[in-house]
């Protein structure tokens, strides 16, 4: 079941079209990557989902019905440009935002204390925000996005500003929450995060949706049927004289003391046929498909469109 659906949403400021007929479906418990270059319209889409601004056309469906203001209690949001009230204390700040997110005072206290404990920052409760480093403030902001037990969380560049240790902490928390039923929308330019975490992606470029769907399928779609084969070549292998593949690279790897062969399969050819052919001329040590990275797909889509 889809927890959130965007149906043909458009938005323009004066004559500037910022989102053009964007539609997407986010399954429950997905980690959905929202990708796109700067100024593509990602923030506008996120703001529309959060009801910070209204779309000109289209609708946002949450759990099967039109998203209402009350549903915002079930949404978490970590904006890219985030801030806190610098003069407030950590504890009271978290409590204030928890209550704005519809929590009762007692529950808010309990949850805030438990999260501060989990992130090993209990002794910050009475510290003023302005006393915290940027990284520390990022932790608080992440807690703000998830503390009210939301079903759907939008994280805009969640790892920026974190050191590797804390980035890992945040990543594990995301995976942990996902296991417990929470769905995430991850807007980021860090493609390694997309590779690692997302199972669905959409790419928006110049206000238009360029691609949308399961990451695995998108990668398949962008697959070039190229394989890297390593081993010892017994007799020369060339593209000439075979109808199976085209040799893109053929080089001796000094370090590993073997040959690296990069082949692109011709249309309709199965890898097993290629292996049967090669085995006569080569002692095969390893074989892997060269799958395009999300980074490659992103660049090729943005540059082509």
């Amino acid at each position, binding site marked *: 079941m889809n927890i959130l659906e965007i149906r043909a949403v458009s938005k323009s400021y004066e004559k500037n079209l910022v989102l053009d007929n964007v539609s997407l479906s986010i399954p429950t418990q997905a980690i959905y990557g929202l990708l796109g270059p700067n100024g593509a319209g990602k923030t506008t889409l996120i703001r529309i989902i959060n009801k910070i601004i209204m779309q*000109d056309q289209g609708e946002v469906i949450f759990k099967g019905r039109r998203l209402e203001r009350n549903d915002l209690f079930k949404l978490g949001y970590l904006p890219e440009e985030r801030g806190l009230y610098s003069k407030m204390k950590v504890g009271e700040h978290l409590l204030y935002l928890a209550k704005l997110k519809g929590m009762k005072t007692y529950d808010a206290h309990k949850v805030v204390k438990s999260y501060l404990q989990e992130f090993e920052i209990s002794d910050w409760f009475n510290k003023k925000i302005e006393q915290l480093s940027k990284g520390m403030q990022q932790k608080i902001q992440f807690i703000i996005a998830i503390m009210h037990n939301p079903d759907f969380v939008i994280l805009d560049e969640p790892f920026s500003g974190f050191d590797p240790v804390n980035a890992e902490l945040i990543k594990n928390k995301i995976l942990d929450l996902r296991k417990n039923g929470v769905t995430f929308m991850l807007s980021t330019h860090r493609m390694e995060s997309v590779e690692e975490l997302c199972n669905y992606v959409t790419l928006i470029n110049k206000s238009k949706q360029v691609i949308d769907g399961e990451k695995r399928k998108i990668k398949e779609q962008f697959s070039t049927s190229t394989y890297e084969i390593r081993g010892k070549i017994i007799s020369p292998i060339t593209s000439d004289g075979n109808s199976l593949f085209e040799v893109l690279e053929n080089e001796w790897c000094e370090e590993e003391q073997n040959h690296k062969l990069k082949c692109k399969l011709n249309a309709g050819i199965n890898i097993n046929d290629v292996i049967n052919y090669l085995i006569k001329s080569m002692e095969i040590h390893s074989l892997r498909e060269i799958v395009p990275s999300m980074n490659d797909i992103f660049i090729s889509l943005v540059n082509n469109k």
Partner: protein
Amino acid sequence: MGKTGYIIGREYMIRVRKRTFWLLTFLIPLVYLAMIGFSVLMTKNPGAEIQSVNVYDYNGLFKDRLQSNDEITYLFFEPGTEQSQIELLKVAENQHVLIIPKFGINNPNGIKMFSSKMALSFIADKVKSDIRLIIKDERIKALGLNQDIIASLEPQINLEVSKISEAGEEADNSLVASIIAGIAGFLNYIFVFVYGSLVLRGIHEEKQNRIVEIILSTVKPFELMLGKIIGVALVGLTQFIMWVLIILLISALGLSDLDMLSKSATPSSDLSAVLSGLSSMDFTLIIFVFIFFFIGGYFLYSSMFAAVAASVDNQTDMQQFIVPLSIPLIVAIISLQAVLQAPNSNLAVWLSMIPFTSPVIMVARVSIGVPVFQLVISMLILVLSFIFTTWMAGKIYRVGILMTGVKVTYKQLWKWMFYK
């Protein structure tokens, strides 16, 4: 009210728990009372110390007739020894040497007074007046006139001034009313400006540090703006109520003194007029109108300030919008003097109807006395105006608060009002 209630609570608490809030809350009434006390003391006896006047009377006319009082003590010495006393003045304080040479009562010349350092001019005036009265007596006696007849020629005029209004006849209190009116008008001007600026700064801070994006993912922009405006208004009201309470408390403690003063004052004295003037004023109405126009004026201006703070990125751009918006309020305060002199002039009536100036002018006029229908119309106009400006500001705020890096113009603000 739920979420707006939390916002109001935060805006209120964050300011009320500041040390500066409590410092101002207690300091202002104390400064105010200290100023009153000081001015009372100054009129009573500016020098505070009793002034001692050593008199060398060559006529023998003044001994026992120059009467000492709580400000001056006259001491009489044998004429001829004054030189040594004059020398002593160099090191003395509050000492004076008065030399009255021999003269005919028709030609009282050559009177001299030497004073120690820091001598005060009121002593000279007092001494001159005392001598004048004695010489006048002597002249009456020389002409063989009856003292009582002369005294009866001095008419004692008590002009009792009353003003007639629909409520009937009331004692005149124009002097006191003018003072109260001036203070009330000025105080409201300060209040609207100070608390309006708090809203301005608060919203600017939220926009600058980007917390607003998180808040707006839960509450509507209008709720956030309204929460802030109401929260700050409550801070202002708390401060005002605290001031009234503190002043009332201190007044109650010093009331017996005031009562005594009132009784000891002669019916024609200024103090009595002030006290009776004060007692004849309707302070409940004045305080009600003050609070009403503070809230109205504050909402009117702070909502406009909020729209500006939400729209612009930096302080310089902010000033560019705030200065023109503040001009009506400045016009009001400049016109206050003229309004106090002619509280029913066309200028006064118009300025108390225009919502941008009425928070200062109507508050001032009501202390002096204003027709009920004018007050009601002015209140109505103010309420409608602030509802309109708050609505309009809300429209600009919701767009402006999310805009960064945009050079804002009036044209743009106008367009934002109609964004979906």
